[in-house]
């Protein structure tokens, strides 16, 4: 795992021009001799090109707007202030989209109220089965790989047995618990799923924590438990990736 993280750090430094000339030469050699490293590099390089493209598009529209204002003899607003104004507009647009989404949900469900299990069923999506950044290449025979493979094939009991056997001392334990929780969920064993998701959530593993918070809530709703505390905590967390979905669920339950 450490070696992989070192690779990622090295690639990110390269892409940010933070390597010395000698380090760059060593890096170039590695790209030619290590295919796994080269793949990771190409992926991240493409992502950086994509972000550069976003930067160029933003700058283009800012320059065009400045030009327009100048031609009209208007006051030139600073690039910084313009950005803030745009964020306000984007926030308004996002709110509007949420409202549209909410009313779509209301219309398709036929009435104003929804039950926990209905909302859970409408929101649950199977996880991404690619193990996330920072993890080692897992051997096919590994318990984790076997468990995930069984889950993908919807062989839930095999997945549960395999993933549950990953020891707590194992460095992949949190990841195994995350997929174990999904196996329980898909097998409709919601109480066990919620417990496993809570464990992942409490592990503070940044890669899985927010997903685990969200799925734990869905498991709670699916079993028709009392989920008020979970809903309020996530709905009030401004930085949480699932905040808006949780607010929609809270609204759905209240109506």
């Amino acid at each position, binding site marked *: 795992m450490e070696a992989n993280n070192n690779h990622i750090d090295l690639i990110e430094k390269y892409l940010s021009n933070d390597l010395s000339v000698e380090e760059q030469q060593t890096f170039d050699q590695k790209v030619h001799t290590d295919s796994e490293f080269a793949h990771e590099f190409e992926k991240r390089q493409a992502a950086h*090109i994509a*972000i550069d*493209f976003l930067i160029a598009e933003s700058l283009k529209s800012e*320059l065009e707007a400045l030009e327009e204002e100048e031609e009209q003899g208007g006051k030139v607003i600073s690039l910084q202030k313009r950005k803030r104004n745009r964020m306000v507009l984007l926030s308004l647009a996002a709110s509007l989209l949420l409202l549209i989404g909410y009313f779509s949900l209301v219309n398709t469900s036929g009435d104003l109220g929804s039950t926990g299990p209905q909302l859970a069923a409408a929101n649950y999506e199977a996880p991404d089965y690619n193990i996330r950044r920072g993890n080692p290449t897992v051997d096919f025979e590994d318990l984790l790989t076997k468990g995930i493979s069984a889950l993908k094939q919807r062989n839930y009991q095999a997945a549960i047995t395999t993933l549950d056997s990953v020891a707590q001392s194992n460095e992949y334990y949190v990841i195994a618990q995350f997929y174990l929780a999904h196996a329980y969920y898909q097998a409709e064993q919601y109480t066990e799923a919620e417990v496993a998701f809570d464990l992942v959530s409490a592990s503070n593993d940044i890669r899985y924590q927010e997903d685990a918070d969200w799925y734990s809530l869905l498991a709670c709703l699916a079993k028709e438990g009392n989920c008020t505390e979970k809903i309020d905590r996530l709905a009030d967390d401004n*930085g949480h990736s699932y905040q808006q979905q949780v607010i929609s669920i809270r609204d759905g339950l209240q109506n």
Partner: protein
Amino acid sequence: MITTFSDKAIIEAIGAGGQERQKAIAFIYRDKALKNQIVAFVKNHNGNHEDGVDVFHEGIIAFDKNIRRGSYKGEGKLKGYLYSTCRFIWLNKLKRNKKIVYTEEEAQLDQVLHENPESLSLAEEQKDLLRKLLGQLDTKCGKILELWKLSYSMDEIAQQVGLKDGSIARRQKYNCYQKLLQIVDKAPNLKNILK
């Protein structure tokens, strides 16, 4: 108050990113003499005023990118470099539209300053593909990644996109970057097209 920059200060400010970069770009944008020079060049080469202004903007964008990437070598006056960049962009556009023959002499002149001229801007095919892929990323995520690449601090990112604090911005940035990597990984042709 208008901030003035020397060539060195502009390069340092753009390289450092954040709000200093914004000020440096605004300073370049306000250079009327340079802008008029570029517009005049375009008008003298089958273009109109609007084309000239577009090229000036594209030149600033390419200039910003080249400095951030470290591909600007700092040789000669910065104004000259930007003028050459804009001239190159316009002549290449004409060449693509088969409106002129790009003479060897002109090409060599620009090659001196632009070792890798293709890096100045992406082709339309590349832009279309990137727009399509980036459409899968929500606007806020895109903004967070932009600001991160421009070296804004996590606290500044939080402030700009309306998050509670820097630690939340850091978490969001991590999630957004992972999402982008997944999008890139699932686009089989992307890496080849961007080469």
